[in-house]
């Protein structure tokens, strides 16, 4: 791992208890600028809980979540509301797609622009010049994002009518509309066929290189993870059990054990 890279997200000793159950147990993790980091682990390892803590849906029991935006002072994200976390520059997608089904594809992305625009109730009623300009700017930038993820043609469809793979891409576009520094993708390839997965693969790399957005993804599709991400973090039973390059992870006995089980003692 390159030490000269700017550290963007720093999670230190994150712990989340639900009553007596420790879902996440002092997990530490860093995401640097320009990285595609991956978080993998068997089902129930606490990956999504980790995501929910970082994005403010849960308030973690212990630990620090620090965001270091370039040329700005470090911010602690613990206990912030999810909308504040998004404003700080962390955008996410969901494991089970959560689009605004009854709104059009374009409107979905336009919602993403909400926290970067200002027009209030009175602006909306009076429809002044600034309001119309801002509105047009929201439409244009949202449409450009749709083009980027390859959904430009279906901008005026209802989101619920999109095919599954397209819904996933729309979720990514919507998250990108919030101008994030870091994009958190929760199982973006779940339920996709191989073609869709490889298209997604390219899209994620494109976002990382062209838009300069760091990415942290949870994924079960090992091929996708090993292809595009570095570093990889592995969780099991709420604990981080390994971290390193894809090759190091592949060879790590602990990881193999977590996924395939221990060798029987005969």
């Amino acid at each position, binding site marked *: 791992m390159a030490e000269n890279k700017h550290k963007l997200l720093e999670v230190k000793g994150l712990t989340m208890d639900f009553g007596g159950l420790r879902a996440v147990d002092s997990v530490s993790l860093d995401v640097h600028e320009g990285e595609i980091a991956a978080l993998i682990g068997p089902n129930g390892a606490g990956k999504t809980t980790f995501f929910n803590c970082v994005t403010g849906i849960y308030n973690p029991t212990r630990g620090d979540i620090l965001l270091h935006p370039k040329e700005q002072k470090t911010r602690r994200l613990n206990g912030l509301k999810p909308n504040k976390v998004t404003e700080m520059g962390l*955008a996410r997608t969901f494991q089970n797609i959560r689009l605004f089904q009854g709104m059009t594809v374009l409107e979905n992305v336009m919602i993403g622009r909400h926290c970067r625009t200002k027009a209030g109730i009175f602006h909306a009623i009076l429809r002044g010049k600034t309001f119309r300009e801002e*509105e047009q700017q929201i439409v244009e930038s949202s449409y450009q994002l749709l083009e980027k993820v390859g959904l430009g043609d279906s901008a005026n469809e209802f989101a619920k009518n999109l095919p599954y793979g397209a819904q996933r891409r729309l979720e990514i576009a919507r998250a990108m509309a919030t101008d994030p520094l870091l994009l958190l993708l929760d199982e973006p390839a779940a339920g996709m066929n191989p073609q869709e997965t490889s298209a997604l693969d390219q899209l994620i790399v494109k976002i990382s290189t062209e838009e300069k957005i760091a990415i942290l993804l949870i994924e079960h599709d090992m091929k996708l993870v090993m292809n595009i991400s570095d570093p990889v973090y592995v969780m099991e039973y709420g604990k981080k059990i390994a971290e390193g390059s894809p090759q190091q992870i592949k060879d790590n006995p602990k990881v193999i054990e977590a996924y395939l089980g221990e060798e029987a003692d005969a």
Partner: protein
Amino acid sequence: MWQEFKQSIVVSIWFVFLTFPLMVVRVNTMEDLVEWRWMNIAWVAIASFLLSYLWRYMLARKQVRKKVEEEGGDTRSKLQIMLENESLRFKAMGVLLVAALVYPQIFDTYQTTIMISALIYVVLGLGLNINVGLAGMLDLGYVAFFGIGAYTFGILNHHFDVGFWMMLPVGGMVGCLFGVILGFPILRLRGDYLAIVTLGFGMILKVVLENWGSLTFGPSGIANIDKPGLFGLDLSLANHTIYIYYIMIALVVFTIIVTNRLKNSRVGRAWMALREDEVACIAMGIDMARTKLSAYALGAFWAGMIGVVFASKTTFINPASFTFMESAIILSIVVLGGMGSILGVILGAFILILLPEYMRAFSEYRMLIFGASMTLMMIFRPQGLISGLRQTYLYKGAKEEIDNG
């Protein structure tokens, strides 16, 4: 079709069999006779056949529509397509406005009065539409804000002789204020829980109005509220009705413009996002508390404002005007017309308020018809008479495509 025909025949025969003892045989105990009323059986057969056939036909049509929708097809009705045509929509609105303006010149005071109450419900429906249709917050106590507006005017007018025009915006503001105050406790609630709490608000208001005698004059209400003034002119009753009618037309137009603008703005989109998915909504950086409060307060604004008009129109208010029944009717207007659709809500208000007025002959069955039609509506057209229009936007990409093509 044939399948439905056969099934309906079977249903009809079954009904004939079931109702035979009731409908056909009558024992006349006075003269020890048994009357056989064979004609009745024919009516039962025809009616049950027709009803059953209609029912099955509608269900089949609904299935077809669902299938087309799943395949991404177009399920909009002809009316819907026409409404999405903007220039046509403007022309239609112009015609309607002219018709509305000449209405009181053609019809008598009675008709105008009925129309005023319909217009009052149009504004109430549009206000509630912000809560229920756009922001997805089911509000069963909406009438509370209506009552607050009316009583604010009634009390201030009684004690301090404050005039209508002064109170019109103040009533709205007071409604808005109460919307914010009552909005705080419901921020964390959604769905059924929200509905029950708002139902409670409605009930509380009525109890307060009935029992706080020193302020509200209790169940006897406040009488002799001033009618809206027109530069100090002394208007006859008929002219006053016409005057209030025009005030209502202006308010309806104002409401339509404002709610339409709100709907197609950043704020309105945030409301709709909140309706669609709360978790995704906050994850996209939308402040849930602010969005919910603004929707609730703005919904309450219209109710408060129109409460002032109501008090001024009837010149007498008492708690009986602000019962749960009113909330239910306003909610029905929104649901029947089409949640989120401004045109739908207007249509819903006219149907639900004007039909009972003109069908006084059936007034005993009013609630029965009301319930039955709502049930049927939910089965066959849950999106309401007119569903919300899909908002499309012009973007540069599209323009270029046209140029290239």
